[in-house]
Each structure stands twice: as structure tokens, then as C-alpha cells.
């Protein structure tokens, strides 16, 4: 099997019963999707939704019809987005919870020591700051930014996934970019 096969080709193979195609597909996207979820809710919920997203994909794989405008990544991120919205609606969560696990991640960051070169320390400080700034974004802006950064979606694709028009998606991404850039300005 060619590892360079497109996501859509792999999905079509999986529809025909090729399990290896699914493994390839899963390994390509699992981390990005997990981070997309993890940065928007607590880790336990992210794990639950992550599993649910993939199981829904498996169950509904026959319904996937690749087109020029509908890529596999758009398809699965749309499932993830909808599942996340279902969760927020179900829990009546108005403000998306900042991941506790993420705080743990921050704690688990390598402790700056004198052994580390200055450059590494500086980068680590910037990463920590960026992570904090991302959590301070509004939920819509954060989602737009994560979709852009995790999977490189275009503005139109972000609009499709989140169910808004192109201008709204562009505005959200632009505000997110400006806030992060301005927040990072002092460190650069």
C-alpha cells in the first residue's frame, strides 16, 4: 500500500473492507484531532469525544462520498465539531472549560534549569505564553485558530466545518491572529 495515498482514497479502500487503510488514516490524523479537542475541553471529555468521533466515522463510512469540495479532513473535523457542540449543549456549558489537563501539561513542561541553553528556555517561555493566550481567546476564535494550525484548513473549509459563512470564519481567524500576535509582542 502506498503511504502517499490521499485520505479520500484510503477512506474508499476502508469502505471496501481494507483495515490497513483505516490504520493509515487514523495515524495521520489522530494527534491533530485529539489536540483540536483537548484544547477546547477537559482531557477526559476530549478522550471521550475523540473515541466517539472515530467510531462514528467507522459506522458511517458508507456515507462518505469524496468530492472536490468535501475532503476527508473536512468530513471528520465536521463530525468532531458537531460532537463537541452536542457536548456543550448537553452540559449547558456557556463558557468552554479550559482544560485542566492542559494545566497539567503546563506543569509537565520541562523545568527551566541552568543546564538548558538560553535559546531553549526562551522558546519554552514563548510556547507557554502562546498556550495561555490561546486559552484566553473566545471559543469561536480559538476553534478557528486550531483548525487553521492543526490541519491547515483554508478559511472556506473552516467556515464549512463550523457552519458559518466565509466572512465570519475569516473574521474569527483574523481576531485570533491579532490577539495572539499582540500578546506575543512583548516576548519577541
Amino acid at each position, binding site marked *: 500500500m502506498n503511504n502517499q495515498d490521499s485520505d479520500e482514497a484510503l477512506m474508499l479502500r476502508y469502505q471496501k473492507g481494507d*483495515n490497513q487503510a483505516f490504520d493509515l488514516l*487514523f495515524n495521520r490524523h489522530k*494527534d491533530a484531532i485529539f489536540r483540536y479537542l483537548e484544547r477546547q475541553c477537559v482531557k477526559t471529555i476530549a478522550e471521550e469525544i475523540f473515541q466517539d468521533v*472515530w467510531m462514528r466515522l*467507522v459506522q458511517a463510512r458508507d456515507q462518505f462520498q469524496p468530492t472536490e469540495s468535501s475532503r476527508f479532513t473536512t468530513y471528520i473535523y465536521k463530525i468532531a465539531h458537531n460532537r463537541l457542540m452536542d457536548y456543550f449543549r448537553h452540559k449547558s456549558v456557556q463558557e468552554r472549560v479550559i482544560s485542566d489537563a492542559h494545566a497539567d*501539561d503546563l506543569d509537565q513542561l520541562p523545568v527551566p534549569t541552568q543546564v538548558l541553553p538560553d535559546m531553549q528556555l526562551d522558546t519554552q517561555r*514563548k510556547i507557554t505564553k502562546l498556550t495561555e493566550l490561546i486559552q484566553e481567546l473566545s471559543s469561536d476564535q480559538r476553534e478557528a485558530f486550531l483548525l487553521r*494550525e492543526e490541519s491547515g484548513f483554508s478559511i472556506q473549509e473552516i467556515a464549512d466545518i463550523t457552519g458559518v459563512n466565509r466572512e465570519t470564519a475569516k473574521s474569527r481567524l483574523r481576531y485570533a*491572529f491579532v490577539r495572539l500576535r499582540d500578546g506575543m509582542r512583548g516576548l519577541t
Partner: protein
Amino acid sequence: MIDKTQDDFENYLDGNSDLSQLYAKSRNSQAPDNLAVKITEAAHKNPSAARLSAGNRAINKMVLPYAVAATIILSVGIYLAIPANTSDIPDNTNHLAINENVNNLASTSPQQESSSSSQAQLAFRENNTVKAPTQRAIETEESHQLIPPVATESTTPKQLADNTKPKYIETRPAENTIVATKESKDQSVPSQASVEVKQTKDVLIAFSNENPEGIAPQHKQTIEEYEDADFSLDWMNRLAIKTQDNLPATKPASSKLSPDKWLDNISKLHEQKRFKEAAASMTEFRKLYPYYKLPPSLKDAYDNKK
């Protein structure tokens, strides 16, 4: 400033941004391995399940059409099974019941004859009351006049025996004979129903001669209850006619007329300038038909006065 922001954003969209590079370095978290194993195992198991579910989907697709077809077939079947006009259903139950009563009467001993005859008479009345006498009597005013009410508060059992029963006995079989005659016209031979009715008539006439006391009070009560329970679509008409029947004896003869004829008579009285009589008649009319619409000529004279 805006231009600079716009330029920066365009650069960011092109992927030439420090922010994107920094974010790329922060991608340190991964999907948990245990979840990954669980998902891939489930995905590998699923093909057979998916094929099965595809089969189920095919079956499920057929469930709705089958359900709709079954409903339509059932509806049509029920529609065809029920006759369009329930009056077309031959009322054999009455004839059978009459026949049974006659046979029972014939087989009773002389001591039991009196009570059996009474039961037979009651059964005859009840069986025939399924469609008559009240319901048929209401259909035409003439037939109503032929058949007096079975029992009213003012009638005693004796009066009922003297006045009501003989007429009734004469009237009901006659009606049934008409029905039977129609049947025999069609079949060119005397029908079983006409024979049964004739037999019953003979038995009941004999009974009435032997029992001038007429219907026992408890039977009278049963008949009243039966009549009370005899609801039908034209109950309002029956109620109106019953109201007419229960009016005092001094009621004007006009009350026997139909409302329109009555109003015509009042109009004629008006034309003849017999206003007092017209007013009295109108008062009586209004007692019986308080909301009946008056013709324009009378409306001006009476409704406007109110």
C-alpha cells in the same frame, strides 16, 4: 496600522508567520495509545458488522413501503366489509327472536301461559323497538299519530292497556306486514318473516283479550328505560316531537302542524287582521320553537316588538 495588520494576516494565511512556527513547536500532546488501540480494534471488527448493518438498512428501507401497503389493504378491506348503508342489513334478529318467543309460548303450560304471554309481548315490543316504533314514528308525523307513546306519566297501566296496547298491537304487525309484503313481492312467495309476524300478531291479540290489565308496571318501566336509551342521530327531532306529545291537552291544534305551515296560518290570520288570534298563536309557536326563524312579514310584526 491597519495595513500592517492586514499584511501580517495575509502572511499568516500564507504560512509565513512566526506564530505558526511557534505553535508547531507546542504540538507536544498526542492521542492516548490505549484509545488508539481501542479504536483500531473496533474499526477492524466493524466490517462484518457494517455489512450486516447494510443488510439491515436494506430491510429497513422496505419496512415503510410494506407498512403503508398493509395499511391500505386493511383499510380497503374494512371499507368493503362494511355495507354502505346499514339499513341494507337484513334485520333477521327480530324475526328470529319473534319466532323463538312464539315457540316458547306454544310450549308453556296453561299455568305459565299468562306470564309467558306477557314476556312474549315484552320481547316482541323490545325486538321491534330496535328500529320501531319510536324511530319510525318520528320519521313521519302521520305514523307518529298512529302510534301513541308507549307510556307517559299521565297514563296508568289500565289506560295503557285500554288505549295504547290494542292500537299498538294493531299497528306494529301491520307495519311489519307491509315490510313483509314488500319482501314477498320481490320473492313472489310469502316470506318467513310475514308468517312469523302473523303468528305473533295472533298470539298477542289473544293475549290482550285474556289480559285486559295490559302491560305490567315493571314492563312499562322497562319500555320507558329502553326508549330513553334509544339514541340516534335525529334525537333532537324526537325530542321535539316528545315535547309536543307532552304538552297539555289544551294545546292548540296548530302545534300538530309543521313550523312552516303554522307560520303560514299565522300570516293568514294577520292578513285577515285577526291580530289577537295571530298573537296567541305566535306565543304558542314560540313556546315550541323559540329560535325558529320567522318569515320577514312576521319578523317585522313580532321579533321587532321584542
